[in-house]
């Protein structure tokens, strides 16, 4: 998988290919602060991320930001495999941090990118990852203004780890948070759930299967900006249900807001093939990770407006209203099943394992 994707990257197309081509793999010297490290910056990172703040190559990035309240978020990315259907560790590293800022009500602006590379990691793959980061940053409208590279000895890493930290500018008049859900609020989700987790599962050794399932990895700041400009005051809570899936996110909101959450299981959008893959492995889509979906908790009178704004955006076509915030069963997530009965959806313990046995 990884090599397939990397093989399509032609190093000779880079602006100054020679120094990189000299070493087809990462060596300890790339993290040594000397010439090799500089070459990596100059010939790989700079051309890909080019912007004024980065080009200073100072110890810190300096940039202008309109006055106001700032939001800051950080996340590290260690996904395996590095390339998967619909995305890569590079796209995830940008979109993950962009989305964390966006669901906090901020407009993401500037990101840092730090790489921990394993000795022997193919430069062609690093180039492919960096290219994906560059494309994702462009799509999300953010700039990568500072970064760092370290190299660890072979066997001490897993190819590449990436950390990104982002700052964004909070929008005026927006107040969202996990503790602000109110009884009566409507719960919406911006699209089908479980796509990312099952895309990863489809290429995991020992579990792999053929499918059209692709990660939903995407930057949600545009979608969220639309929602906030249409009905900003009505949005009480926004979260992106990543690891642990929709179930974890909604459970956290129920706890933080001290409310109950009632879902209609039939209303939760799930791609048919994602549902099938879950059947095959004995998993429940509500626990499977997403990387391009958001859950919105909004005042009921604005639910229809928010839903139509979501559905008008390319990333929100499958958006749906899936439940209601209630005073019943506080701090619990309860779903009405397709049989008309109810079940509690608990917080998962650790990673969801294929329930084969």
């Amino acid at each position: 998988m990884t090599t397939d994707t990397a093989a399509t990257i032609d190093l000779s197309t880079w602006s100054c290919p020679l120094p990189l081509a000299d070493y087809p793999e990462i060596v300890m010297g790339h993290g040594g602060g000397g010439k090799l490290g500089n070459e990596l910056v100059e010939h790989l990172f700079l051309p890909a991320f080019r912007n004024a703040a980065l080009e200073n190559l100072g110890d810190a990035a300096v940039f202008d930001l309109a006055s106001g309240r700032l939001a800051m978020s950080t996340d590290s990315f260690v996904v395996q495999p590095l390339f998967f259907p619909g995305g890569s560790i590079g796209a995830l590293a940008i979109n993950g941090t962009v989305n964390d800022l966006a669901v906090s009500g901020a407009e993401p602006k500037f990101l840092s990118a730090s790489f921990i590379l394993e000795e022997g990691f193919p430069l062609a793959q690093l180039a492919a990852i960096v290219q994906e980061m560059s494309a994702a940053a462009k799509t999300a409208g953010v700039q990568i203004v500072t970064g760092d590279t370290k190299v660890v000895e072979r066997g001490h890493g897993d190819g590449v780890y990436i950390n990104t930290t982002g700052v964004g500018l909070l929008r005026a008049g927006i107040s969202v948070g996990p503790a602000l859900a109110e009884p009566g609020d409507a719960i919406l989700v911006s699209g089908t759930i479980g796509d990312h987790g099952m895309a990863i599962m489809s290429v995991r050794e020992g579990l792999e299967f053929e499918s059209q399932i692709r990660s939903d990895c995407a930057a949600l700041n545009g979608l969220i900006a639309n929602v906030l400009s249409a009905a900003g005051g009505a949005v009480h809570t926004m979260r992106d249900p990543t690891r642990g899936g929709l179930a974890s996110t909604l459970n956290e909101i129920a706890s933080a807001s001290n409310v109950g959450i009632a879902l209609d299981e039939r209303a939760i959008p799930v791609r048919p093939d994602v549902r099938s893959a879950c059947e095959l492995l004995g998993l429940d889509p509500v626990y499977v990770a997403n990387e391009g979906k958001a859950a919105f908790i909004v005042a009921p009178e604005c639910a229809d407006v928010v839903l139509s704004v979501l559905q008008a955006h390319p990333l929100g076509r499958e958006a749906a209203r899936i439940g209601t915030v209630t005073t019943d069963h506080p701090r619990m997530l309860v779903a009405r099943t397709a049989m008309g009965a109810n079940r509690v959806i608990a917080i998962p313990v650790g990673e969801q394992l294929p329930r084969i046995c």
Partner: protein
Amino acid sequence: MCLAIPGRVEEITSDGPIRMGRVNFGGVVKKVCLDYVPEIAVGDYAIVHVGFAISKVDEATAEETLATFRAMGVLDEELATEEEAFARAADRPQSNCPDGSCALPDSATSTEPQLLGKKYRQ
């Protein structure tokens, strides 16, 4: 231990000594061992458990069973819509006939299980 689901056999191949096949489970395709279902052909459905087809789905019987299910209580006007059915579920619990209101229908004690459905269908 019985997570097994039905899939449609798309291709039959042999992988060295064993008979393998590609089985499609609602858009997800997995390689599956077909050695235990020698009668299976492309287009058939099989129940698959941990990578092994363990039984061919008898499609005619499946349709019959469904028809029997569909026939159950079709004259029950109260349950005309699915929404009402859900509302009804939420109305539980019903007492377990303290007043004998849910006594056996007259013929239920003497009909075969399959006939119970037919009784409601007439």
